[in-house]
């Protein structure tokens, strides 16, 4: 990500980002001035009235109506300004434009999946066209998550029992970070995705391409691509190191002890089952936290993943 942008903010990328920033800086400077007054006066008094020699009785006046009114009224005016400004921009961020294109966002431990009107889908990578309002219809499969794109100054919780809705309009193409900001367990800090803003044409091309192996892409390579694009890598390593889930290194044909007891040799059907009904057979020593990929992975994708896992065993 390019690191231009101000001291406090990453470069903005949505229509309302600028508005948020200017309100932020308004409060910032207003506070800075008042802070300077408070601390300035303090320092002045300390120096001026520092106890030097023995003291007697001190000045006893403890009231000054004019003064007290001023420091009640001025702050009140300021906060009223801030309140109104903040509320109006907030409404702009919440009222979805009618012509907005809708994307269904699903949060679950610990990745994001996106479904587009055209039937295309993606995981941990939200792809949107530039200069067009995008409405996010969001829900969670397990606990509360929160959908945060710093560059867009946009954030909304994702709840298990109801839909939450928000929107944005990207003002420039590029790639941006996407974080989960509601604590959701072990993988919370890895529940990170990317937002790809494409030009009109690239975007429609991307939609048509949908998923599936690209031209001349071998099944294994496609599987390897899914391994990251479908977030298997958040829980499964391919270098043999244990993670949330067992490593894929040499997984195919491996003997696995089951929580239920007994052993299983990993074959095509078992892998398929592990992907579609993960909780059916749980590997000993692991939590049954793997989410189902029912509806997210098509048969072709699963074949590719199996091929990919085999390739990891042959090495």
């Amino acid at each position, binding site marked *: 990500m390019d690191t231009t942008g101000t001291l406090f903010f990453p470069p903005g990328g949505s229509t309302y980002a600028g508005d948020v920033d200017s309100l932020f800086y308004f409060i910032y400077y207003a506070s800075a001035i008042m802070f300077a007054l408070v601390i300035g006066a303090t320092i002045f008094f300390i120096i001026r009235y520092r106890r030097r020699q023995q003291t007697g009785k001190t*000045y006893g006046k403890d009231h000054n109506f004019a*003064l007290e009114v001023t420091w009640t009224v001025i702050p009140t005016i300021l906060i009223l300004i801030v309140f109104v400004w903040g509320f109006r921009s907030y409404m702009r961020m919440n009222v979805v434009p009618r012509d907005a294109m809708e994307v269904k966002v699903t949060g679950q431990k610990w990745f994001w999946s996106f479904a587009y009107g055209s039937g295309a889908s993606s995981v941990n990578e939200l792809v949107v066209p530039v200069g067009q309002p995008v409405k996010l219809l969001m829900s969670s499969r397990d606990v509360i998550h929160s959908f945060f794109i710093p560059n867009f100054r946009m954030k909304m919780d994702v709840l298990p029992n109801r839909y939450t809705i928000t929107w944005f309009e990207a003002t420039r193409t590029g790639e941006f970070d996407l974080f*989960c900001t509601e*604590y959701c367990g072990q993988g919370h*800090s890895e529940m990170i995705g990317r937002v790809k803003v494409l030009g009109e044409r690239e975007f429609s091309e991307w939609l048509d391409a949908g998923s599936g192996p690209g031209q001349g892409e071998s099944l294994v390579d496609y599987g390897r691509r899914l391994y990251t694009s479908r977030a298997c890598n958040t829980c499964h390593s391919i270098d043999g190191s244990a993670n949330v889930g067992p490593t894929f290194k040499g997984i195919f044909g491996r003997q696995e002890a089951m929580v239920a007891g007994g052993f299983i040799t990993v074959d095509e059907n078992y892998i398929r089952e592990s992907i579609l009904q993960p909780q059916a057979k749980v590997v000993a020593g692991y939590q049954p936290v793997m989410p189902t990929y029912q509806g997210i992975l098509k048969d072709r994708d699963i074949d590719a993943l199996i091929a990919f896992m085999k390739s990891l065993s042959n090495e």
Partner: protein
Amino acid sequence: MAATITAPAPNYLNATKGWKSWLLTLDHKRIAILYMVAIAVFFLVGGVMAMLIRLELLNPGRDLVGANTYNKLFTLHGAIMIFLFIIPGIPAILGNFLLPILLGARDVAFPRLNLASWYIFMLGGLFALYSIITGSIDTGWTFYTPYSTQTDTSVVSMTLGAFILGFSSILTGLNFIVTIHKLRLPGITWYRLPLFVWSIYATAIIQVLATPVLGITLLLLVVERLAGIGIFDPAMGGDPVLYQHFFWFYSHPAVYIMILPGMGIISELITTHSHKKIFGYKAVAYSSLGIALVSFLVWGHHMFVSGQSELAAMLFSFLTFFVGIPSGIKVFNWVTTMYRGSIVLNTPMLYALSFLFLFSIGGFTGIFLGALAVDVHLHDTYFIVAHFHYVMMGGTVMAFLGGIHHWWPKMFGKLYNEFWAKIACGLIFVGFNVTFGSQFILGSQGMPRRYYTYVDQYQPLHAFSTFGSWILGAGFLIMAVYLIHSLVKGKRAGSNPWYSLTMEWETSSPPPTENFIELPSLTHGPYDYDKVLPINVEPDGKPAKLKEAVS
């Protein structure tokens, strides 16, 4: 402790001996010391965890602990610091010790209840400890459902612990309210009360009104986990967000339980050490009550992005700002109090000034968060972490440390090493700003909180922050050393080393068990520095003039 201190007259420390005389004491001053020991330990534990947190965040990826351990670390750090350190902290230690003395009373209204509160407090601590041993807890100190009902860590014992601690808090508050109403010495009218008492009073009201709601909330959470009654479980027709409303209905007022006593201390420190009548006594007194009142109406500002209705968001945002006004009034009055005073920059005063500096920053950043559109961006980022450390650590803890240094001679009859005290204060002030100042930028740049690892662009600022935490730790270490040294072989303190006019300084240091040998004169109010000159009776019994106060 009792052994190490030998004052001329028999005092509350050496009146009776043996551990029993401590664990069964009904003397509010000894109970205060009991709290002090326990709370210092909890603070140490919470602080050490903080150090580990910072160490882990030095680089992205795993530095010394894995994700699960990290999640437990910040949860415990938060829970311990909130429920076992900062909420009981000032009322239970300084409040207990000073309140009766400042009212000219012999003890609090219900001494036995007071001791009971301590035992209940320790019981709550034990529950927390039990939870830590049995798998600990990884929900964050907010225990949000549904995660908290699903995680397999030991949530129940921790929440029960918090529930019990709530009880201790309620009983202390209740005790104080009655004491202030009924046990004032005839002649001590409400407007002759030191402002510390007013702030304790406002705090007690919140404790009594808000804590029961936390109690029932945590109880519901426990039942939910044990019996799966589905109150907060979406799968069973419950609503997780309802939990958030319940939780914040307590926990927002709770933040003023944390700050108000600190504000009370600041009023005392600034008047005494600038030898000046408080500016706008009534304004400062009533602003405490004002804050207490408004604090019950703003809880929703923690939930601006949780899908609550725009109307609710608007109301909560609006009310949130209005806490700023009374807080502001206090700040301005304190500053004006120093005008034409006679200011000594000794350790307590330095802490008071740090408070002014840090709390203002913390408070102003609260205004950022109250502004709806801005909060949407900042919510659950490090900006929040920075905000609440500035108000809690930079506000309450600074006031607390100031208070400890201010009343230390009274509590133990010993002076501490002024030089090292100043060094420690400086280190803490600098270290604090390095640690948390950088986190404001981290947050608005988008760094989410409760992250055990993070994307590379945040690394430099995280490293900076971690570096600051080392300075901070060093400061506290020095403090621990010179305070303990003072207990063992500190110089004996006179009755009134700061030349203050509040009543606790009229009795000997440390005070006798009955607080006053002969009842205080009441010839002047607590802040009449324009009318009378305080004197200090040295341990050898000679009255000392003000001049010696200048170091």
